């Protein structure tokens, strides 16, 4: 695991850009200490309150596949009809996988008019770890939800294991609407899946022939809008699984089209405008 530590620092800086992590973060720190160090680095001098009605994190107890761990964020889910101006509405969520080489998996910005109460994505989990979701509400307060996942080796799992022969090329974006009867009775509340074909290389996977590490290349920005209204935007890191996948609900503003833009760390841009098709 020693090899990871140098990479960890590099990857963390790459993924976070401007946020420097405490160098005291050691691989053998106790789980509690890791989180304390992360809070000092990411949310200095701020109070984090636990309140499941504002942010609730859903994860499996153990990662069935460490390279693909479903994580669900529930925002204001007990009160989805909270007025848009309510101070308790969540506007931003930071997803942190404490023991990963790059702990900040993603930062989600929620559109003020789209009323997203659920985002499900899939992450890589490198070892047993706590996972935290930190929500910032409209009034600027921070709320946290914590869970624990047992896992091993998700960040170095080879990408491209899936049978991609003849599959869609890198950057293909697919938009999948979930049938309303599956979701709920509110006709205006819809659910959809955005998927991007992308290896999301972590920098910890090797080329089979050369045994050199494949450089990190991952989706760092994604925006999903309905008409001119943002549904959500993601700033992502290497902890998001191969073929990034986001399933979310939103309040429809009546637009028939959804607009998706994405960019990876190599500077390649991807886009798709399209009707939210029915489930396959």
């Amino acid at each position, binding site marked *: *695991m*020693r*090899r*990871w530590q140098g990479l960890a620092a590099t990857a963390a800086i790459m993924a976070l850009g401007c946020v420097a992590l405490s160098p005291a973060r050691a691989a053998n720190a106790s789980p509690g200490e890791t989180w304390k160090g992360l809070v000092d680095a990411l949310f200095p001098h701020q109070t984090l309150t636990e309140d499941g009605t504002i942010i609730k994190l*859903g994860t*499996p107890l153990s990662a*069935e*596949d460490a390279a*693909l761990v*479903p994580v*669900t964020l529930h925002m204001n889910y007990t009160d989805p009809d909270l007025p848009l101006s309510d101070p308790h509405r969540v506007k931003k969520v930071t997803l942190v996988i404490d023991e990963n080489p790059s702990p900040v998996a993603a930062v989600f910005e929620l559109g003020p008019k789209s009323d997203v109460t659920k985002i*499900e994505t*899939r992450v890589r989990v*490198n*070892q047993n770890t706590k996972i935290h979701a930190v929500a910032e509400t409209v009034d600027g307060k921070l709320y946290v939800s914590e869970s624990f996942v047992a896992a*091993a*080796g998700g960040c*170095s*799992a*080879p990408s*491209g*294991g*899936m*049978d991609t*022969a003849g*599959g*869609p090329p890198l950057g293909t974006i*697919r938009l*999948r609407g*979930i*049938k309303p009867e*599956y*979701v709920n009775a509110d006709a205006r509340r819809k*659910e959809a*899946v955005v*998927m991007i*074909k992308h290896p999301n290389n972590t920098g*910890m*996977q*090797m*080329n*089979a*022939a050369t*045994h050199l590490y494949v450089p990190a290349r991952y989706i760092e920005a994604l925006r999903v809008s309905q008409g001119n209204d943002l549904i959500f935007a993601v700033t992502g890191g290497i902890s998001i*699984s191969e*073929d990034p*996948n986001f*399933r979310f609900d939103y309040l429809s503003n009546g637009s028939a089209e959804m607009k998706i833009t994405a960019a990876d760390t190599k500077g390649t841009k991807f886009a798709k405008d399209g009707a939210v098709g029915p*489930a*396959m």
Partner: protein
Amino acid sequence: MAKHPTWLTALTLLALTLLGSLGLAHGEGAAITPLPVREIAPGVYAHQAPVTAMNAASGGDIANLGFIVGDEAVAVIDTGGARIIGERLKKAIEAVTRKPVRYVINTHEHPDHIFGNAAFAAPGVIFVGHMNLPRAMAERGPAYLATWRRVMTPALVDGIKLVPPTLLVSPGKDVRLDLGHRLIDLRAWPPMHTDCDVTIFDEKTATLFTGDLVFLQHVPVVDASVLGWMRAMPALAKIPAKRVVPGHGTVDVDWPQALAAEKTYFTKLTQDLRGFIARGADINQAAKEAGQSEASKWQLFGIYNPRNATAGYAELEWQ
């Protein structure tokens, strides 16, 4: 009279202790007991491991292993999940032949098949595997060791060294090894169980070592591609074997009938997953419910089926 037996017991104990320590001092190597193996065809030996999880209790002995003896040399097929298992396999080989081990073939990257490699590392021994195996070992090896240190005893993990292959097999280019009037064919497969699966076919007896491309009793584990596995199955079935040694479960079974159970499992699992995706069920629900109609047919189903369902959902979502 009560004194007598006590006195005798003490003496007996003393004698046993002395004998015990003498025995230990006399034959340190004898502490390693040969792994039980069976000659399933002339010159072809297989060890059938129990179907169980890798933990302290199973001691790393959970994968089927084997060896093939030619006129000049021996080829070992997989080495077990701990160094001691490799050492015990070596003892089993020494018990049936004095010919040297020339090749150690790893059928894929998983710890239960490669962690005994170090027991065979010696001048003149060539390690053989899929062209992707060195990468897989380097990438995942450290994480495997860390995990296994937690779930097994430290003593079982301490002697383990990752020994990567130097003779590599590429898909589409079978490699033939000569053990002395005995040819064995090695084939590398596209992503199926893992992305570094190799099978070994002994021409003389038409025995096929499938590694984990065939699971019996132990629910199949998909670590690369369920669709790739299903797609490659007809080519696998075409290998003209009379008997196979699967990676897990009963050894010396008929071919290609041995594929039937896992084919049914994959068919049911992928049917369920396609249905879940079409209806709009999410990946968490799929992990809990897909493939459950097969649960009673397999061991370790609760551990590995959710994993297969999770990875399979993500794979099928792109179809």
